[in-house]
C-alpha cells in the first residue's frame, strides 16, 4: 500500500537524520576525569565529587552548535579546556534557525533554573535575551560573546568582544605582500556588521601595503538567510570565480563554508587565508599547503579566561576587549608560508597596538 510505504520511507529518513545528529550531539553532558579522584562517575554526580567545585557551566551556542569547525567550536574548545582543568561539569544547548526570541530567553532561563552558573551565550543573537534574562538571576554570572556592554548591559554580564578588524588587517597585509597578481579576494559568509569588520580590516591591511591592489568581495548570503556560514558549495563557487578572475589569494570569513574556499584554492593552484582558528591544523593534509595563514579570533581563550576568572572570583562585568594588544586576535604561522614577511607583519602589529594605525570597522 502506498501509504505504508510513505510512512516507511519517512521513518527511515528520520532515522538517518537522527543518526547523523546523534554523533555530534552525544556528549552533551561531560565530566572531566582529571579531578584526581579517579572515579568515572555519571554526569549527574559531578557535583558530589570531592575536590571538584560545586558548580556547573552552562553554554548556549549560536546556530550550528558544537561541531561547526569554526566560531562555536572555538567557544567549545575554551569550555572543554577550562572544564577539564577545573574538573567541573557543563551543559550545552544550541540555537535553531528561525527560532523566536523567547526561545533564546527560555534556553538561558532553563540553564539558570537548572543551577548552571556561570552561563556563557555564544553569538550576538543572544544580545537582547541576555540583557533581559540576566537581571532575573542576579546570582548567576553571564558572559556573552560578540555583544558589547552598550548592546547587552548588566551588572552580572561579562561582554567578550573582539577586534576582528585588527587581526584581519594583518592577514590583509600578508595577502598583499604575498600576492603576485596584485589581486586578492574576500569571501564573507553572511553580510552582517560582524563579518564586515573582517572585510574592512582586510582591505585596510592590503591597501596599507599596496594602495593599488584589486580586492574582490563576495558575501554568500544575506540575513536572515544564515546558510552562508554553513554551505561549502557556495564558498567554493564564489572563490572559483575570484581565482578565475585573476585573484591569487582569497581570505574567507565564512564559518563552515570556508572549506569550499580552500578546495577552490587547491583546484586553482592558488592560496587562501583561514579564519577564527588556526585552520591549517584542521584541514586534510593535501589542502594544508594552500593556507598561508589564518586570522585568529581567540574565542577559546576568551571563554577559558572567563571561566577561570569566575572560578577565582575575579570576574568583572562589562566589556573585556580581545584585541592585538591583549593577544585576543592575531595571525597564525603554521606551515611557514609567511615566515619571510613576518618582520613586516610584526611592524604593522606594533603600529596598531601603539595606535599609529587605526583600523576601520566598516568597509
Amino acid at each position, binding site marked *: 500500500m502506498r501509504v505504508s510505504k510513505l510512512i516507511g520511507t519517512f521513518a527511515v529518513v528520520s532515522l538517518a537524520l537522527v543518526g547523523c545528529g546523534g554523533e555530534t550531539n552525544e556528549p552533551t553532558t561531560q565530566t572531566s576525569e582529571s579531578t584526581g579522584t579517579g572515579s568515572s562517575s555519571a554526569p549527574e554526580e559531578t557535583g558530589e565529587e570531592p575536590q571538584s567545585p560545586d558548580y556547573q557551566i552552562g553554554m548556549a551556542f549560536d546556530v550550528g552548535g558544537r561541531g561547526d569547525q569554526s566560531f562555536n567550536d572555538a567557544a567549545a574548545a575554551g569550555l572543554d579546556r577550562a572544564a577539564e582543568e577545573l574538573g567541573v561539569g557543563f551543559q550545552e544547548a544550541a540555537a*535553531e534557525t528561525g527560532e*523566536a526570541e523567547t526561545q533564546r530567553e527560555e534556553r538561558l532561563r*532553563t540553564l539558570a533554573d*537548572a543551577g548552571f552558573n556561570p552561563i556563557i551565550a555564544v553569538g550576538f543573537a543572544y544580545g537582547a535575551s541576555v540583557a533581559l534574562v540576566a537581571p532575573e538571576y542576579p546570582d548567576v554570572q553571564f558572559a556573552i560573546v560578540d555583544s558589547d556592554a552598550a548592546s547587552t548591559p548588566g551588572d552580572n554580564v561579562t561582554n567578550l568582544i573582539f577586534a576582528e578588524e585588527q587581526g584581519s588587517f594583518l592577514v590583509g597585509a600578508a595577502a598583499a605582500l604575498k600576492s603576485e597578481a596584485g589581486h586578492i579576494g574576500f569571501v564573507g559568509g553572511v553580510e552582517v556588521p560582524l563579518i564586515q569588520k573582517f572585510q574592512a580590516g582586510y582591505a585596510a591591511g592590503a591597501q596599507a601595503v599596496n594602495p593599488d591592489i584589486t580586492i574582490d568581495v563576495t558575501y554568500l548570503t544575506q540575513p536572515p538567510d544564515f546558510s552562508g556560514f554553513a554551505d561549502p558549495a557556495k564558498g567554493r563557487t564564489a572563490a572559483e570565480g575570484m581565482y578565475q578572475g585573476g585573484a591569487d589569494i582569497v581570505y574567507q570569513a565564512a564559518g563552515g563554508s570556508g572549506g569550499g574556499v580552500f578546495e577552490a584554492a587547491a583546484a586553482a593552484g592558488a592560496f587562501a587565508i583561514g579564519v577564527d582558528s588556526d585552520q591549517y591544523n584542521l584541514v586534510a593534509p593535501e589542502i594544508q599547503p594552500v593556507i598561508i595563514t589564518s586570522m585568529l579570533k581567540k574565542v577559546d581563550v576568551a571563554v577559558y579566561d572567563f571561566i577561570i576568572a569566575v572560578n577565582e572570583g575575579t570576574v568583572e562585568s562589562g566589556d573585556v576587549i580581545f584585541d592585538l594588544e591583549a593577544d585576543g586576535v592575531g595571525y597564525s604561522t603554521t606551515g611557514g608560508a609567511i615566515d619571510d614577511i613576518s618582520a613586516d607583519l610584526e611592524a604593522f602589529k606594533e603600529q596598531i597596538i601603539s595606535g599609529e594605525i587605526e583600523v576601520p570597522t566598516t568597509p
Partner: protein
Amino acid sequence: MQFDPRRVALTLAAPVLALVAAVAIASLVLAAAGDPVIEVWRTILQPPKPRNVVNIINSASVLYLSGLAVAIGFRMNLFNIGVDGQYRLAAFVAAVVAAQGWLPGVLNIVLTIVVAMLVGAMWAGVAAILKVTRGVSEVISTIMLNAIATALVAYLLRKASVQVAGSNNIGTAPIPEDSRMPGIALIPGAPNEVYGFVVVAIAAGIAYSVLLSRTTFGFNLRATGRSESAAVASGIDVKRMVVIAMLISGGVAGLVGMPLLLGSAYSYGLTFQSGLGFAGIAVALLGRNNPVGIAIGALLFSYLNEQSNPLQILVGVSDDIVKIVQGIVVLTVVIAYEVVRRYGVAQEQRKVARELANQRRRDSEEVSAA
C-alpha cells in the same frame, strides 16, 4: 442537519489517529537513536509554567496568522509559498514607518498595521499578476519572490538601520513607546503578558470564517477552488478571483510579523524571527484550512516548540526531535484524514447498499405476498 454521533466520531478520529501515529513513530526514532523515550515525552507533556503558557499563546498567535494567510490561498487552490517573504518585507517596511512616529499613539499602531497589510498584499500581488497575465505558476513565482524579498530587506536594512557603535546587530530604529501594543495579563502568575495582537489574530480568524461561508465572494472563492471550469461556466471571473485571493492572502501575511513588532521586538533587526511563512503552511495543512483547526494546529506547534526547548538541557536530547515530530504530525494528519475519509465513504456505501438490499427484499416480499 441532524446530529450524527458516527460523523462526529469520524471527524475526531482523524486528528487523534494522526497524533497517536506521530507519537509512536517519533518514539521509534528516539529509541533507534538511543535516547530516553519516556523522559522526552515526560518533559514535553509536563504542565507548562505560567510564563511558558504566555509564550505558547504568543507564538501561536503568530503561527495562526501565517496559517490563515496560507489557508486563504489553499481554499482557492492557490499555493502561496510566499507568505515568508511577504511577512518579512511587510514587517520591515512597517517597522520603518512606525519608527517615524508620524501619528500619535494608537493611530500610529493602526497606520503600522495598514502599511504592513498593504506591503504584504503588494508583494503577493506581483505573483497574482504574473499568474493571470503570463500564466506563471504562483508556486514558482512566490518562491522566487521570497528570495528577492530576502535580498531587498537585507539591502534596505543597511540603509535604514541604526547601529549602536560596537554592536554586531543592526535594526531599524525602535518604534515610539506610545505606539507599542500593550500586552494583556491573561495568565495569572506569569511575569510576562500575552500580546495585545492576539485579539487581532482572533478577529482575523472570525473574519476569515465569515468571508468564506457567509459571503458571495467566499462562495465564489470556494467554487473556484473546487473546480475552475465549473466556476467559469457559472459566470465567475476566475482571474479576478485569483488576484483578489492573492491580495487578501498577502494582506494577512503582512500581519504575521505584527505581534512581534508591536508586542516584543519593537524594531526589525537581524534577529527578527524568520521562517514563519513555512511554518504557516504546515499549520494550515494541519488545521485543514478550518479557522478553528488552524488555531489548534498553531497551538499544538507552539506548544511543541516551547516544551521541547529545554530537552537539550534537561534530558540531553537534541530538540531537533520536535522538528521531526512536527513533520510526522503533518504527514500523519494528511494520511489519517485520507484513511478516515475513505473509511467513511466505504461505511456510507455499505449503509446505502444495505438499505437498498433491505428495500429490494421488502419489495420482493410484497410482490410474492400479492
